[in-house]
């Protein structure tokens, strides 16, 4: 009897009651998002390759062999001993690419962490306290944006000497601007919400409000910026190394590999094509994941 009075299944109210739970909805959204799946998948594969590089690489990435210089890759008539050929010093190209994933991902993760901590602290402070704190932070953001990143990074790395650590720290100290901008705006939005007022009313301390009321509600934006800045740092490291003022040889960095292959580009263009293509795929994957995360966590802003 009750059955006959039930509304049709496409009623939005019923959907609300017996429809998919928020968790189920999130899962449908995640798996319905091709960019996110592709990006996260590729990133995961490269992460595994980077972590297990010593076991996956067929050769020592530093071992030179003058007898085997400039062997072509398999698809250009090479043999399977060096699937992607060898460079001008006879080093196995595939092994160098695999170790290069370590360099790129390490730079991306650590530089984004450093700049994330700096930028988030500044942005949240500016958004929460407003007034003078905000004015100072906004001014610092303007100053930072006015400094040409590539030029300043090049000059500082040249001065301190190019090494992986120096490049990571310099990029980490330079790339906090977007964190500060986004975290400031997000905090400004969240701090007016009722739950923040309520927390203040029951006498919660400022650090507590920031940590347990503000941070969880701006975390989704933070994650998106983390991915964007990871990609940014990875690209910048490649640029610095390409210009000869980043990671120094013989470290296998993809930007450096492009730079080394450049001199032989006339006859062996694959020396430049392969490392650049891998770099492109990694950055593309991270960006797609970032875009996907933004769509999935904040579907109402998607328009």
């Amino acid at each position, binding site marked *: 009897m009750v059955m006959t009075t039930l509304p049709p299944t496409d009623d939005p109210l019923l959907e609300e009651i017996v429809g998919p739970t928020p968790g189920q909805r999130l899962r449908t959204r995640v798996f319905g998002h091709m960019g996110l799946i592709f990006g996260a998948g590729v990133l995961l594969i490269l992460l595994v390759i980077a972590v297990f590089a010593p076991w996956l690489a067929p050769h020592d990435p530093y071992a030179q062999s003058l007898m085997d210089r400039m062997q072509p890759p398999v698809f250009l008539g090479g043999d399977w001993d060096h699937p992607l050929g060898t460079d001008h010093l006879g080093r196995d190209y595939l092994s160098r690419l695999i170790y290069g994933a370590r360099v790129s991902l390490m730079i991306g993760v650590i530089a984004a962490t450093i700049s994330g901590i700096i930028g988030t602290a500044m942005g949240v402070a500016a958004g929460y306290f407003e007034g003078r704190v905000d004015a100072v932070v906004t001014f610092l953001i303007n100053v930072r944006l006015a400094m040409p990143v590539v030029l300043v990074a090049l000059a500082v790395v*040249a001065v301190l000497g190019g090494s992986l650590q120096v490049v990571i720290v310099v990029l980490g100290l330079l790339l906090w601007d977007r964190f500060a901008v986004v975290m400031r705006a997000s905090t400004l939005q969240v701090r007016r919400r009722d739950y923040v007022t309520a927390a203040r009313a029951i006498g919660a301390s400022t650090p507590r409000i920031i940590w347990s009321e503000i941070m969880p509600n701006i975390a989704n934006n933070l994650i998106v910026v983390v991915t964007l800045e990871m990609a940014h740092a990875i690209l910048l490291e490649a640029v610095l190394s390409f210009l000869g003022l980043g990671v120094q040889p013989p470290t296998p960095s993809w930007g450096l590999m492009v730079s080394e292959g450049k001199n032989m580009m006339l006859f062996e263009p694959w020396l430049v094509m392969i490392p650049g293509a891998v770099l492109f795929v990694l950055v593309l994957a991270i960006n797609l994941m970032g875009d996907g995360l933004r769509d999935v966590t904040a579907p109402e802003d998607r328009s």
Partner: protein
Amino acid sequence: MLQFILKRLGLALLVALTVSFISFILLFLSGDPASALAGESATDQDVAAIRELYGFDRPMLVQYASWLFDALRGDFGESYYFRLPVASLLAERLQVTMLLGLCGISFALLTAVPLGVVAAIRPNSMIDRFALFLSVAGQALPSFWFGLILIVAFSIKLQWLPASGTATWKHFIMPTIVLGYYAMPAIMRLTRGGMLEVLSSDYIRTARAKGASEGRVMFKHALRNAIIPVVSLAAVQMGFMLGGSIVVESIFALHGAGYLAWESIARNDLPTVQALILVFSMFYIVFTFLADVLNAWLDPRMRAG
């Protein structure tokens, strides 16, 4: 309006001053310029003499102040490497970079704006998807690699375009594309978003109801309003582009300011590097200032901020 401009101008000057101070400190900390100048074979006396001659023995703030006052008068000192006044070196090299920057931003606007408009007129069509794909891929494409691919394709394989130099307009085609594509995704997205918003507004409906032709609605009514934020974005992108010219100029061996920056950093030519950092950031500051003023002029609501 005047008050807004003065406020922004004051802020821009303060930013410029801070940037100049930071860049001075960065390079001041870089070790002993006197021993770098004197060379490997110099004795301690030589180094001490040079230190005194150039005034490196004075306190840092004094050196900064004297550098700043000279810079304000257009005197950036003498290049350690070229043994020429940095100012005249810059004046010569900036011409190439300015030309390249103008070409780059024109290329970006002329491709990204039409693409954004078409994508907004037919949302979710093939063209829209293609534009979205281009913007996602464009952001991930390493510019130095893109430049080398173009050289392999058009200079080595097809032999259509020269790979390096500045002799003819043909030399500028590939550098323009490599410099310009980076600004395309942002401009395209902003045009598309702006057009979508404007097209759903009441005055477009009114214009259509009056019987205005579709072309007139699109260009006279819609694009005119949607383009406002794009113009100021383009100004900001132009400031960024001049910084990006380092990579492009080094790939295509264009002897502009970016190439000079790269050379000078590699040669430890401090006065030149200092002047270049200052000039590049001044460009950025001027362009963002112009964008702010333009925005405020076109949209009175912005003046409050």
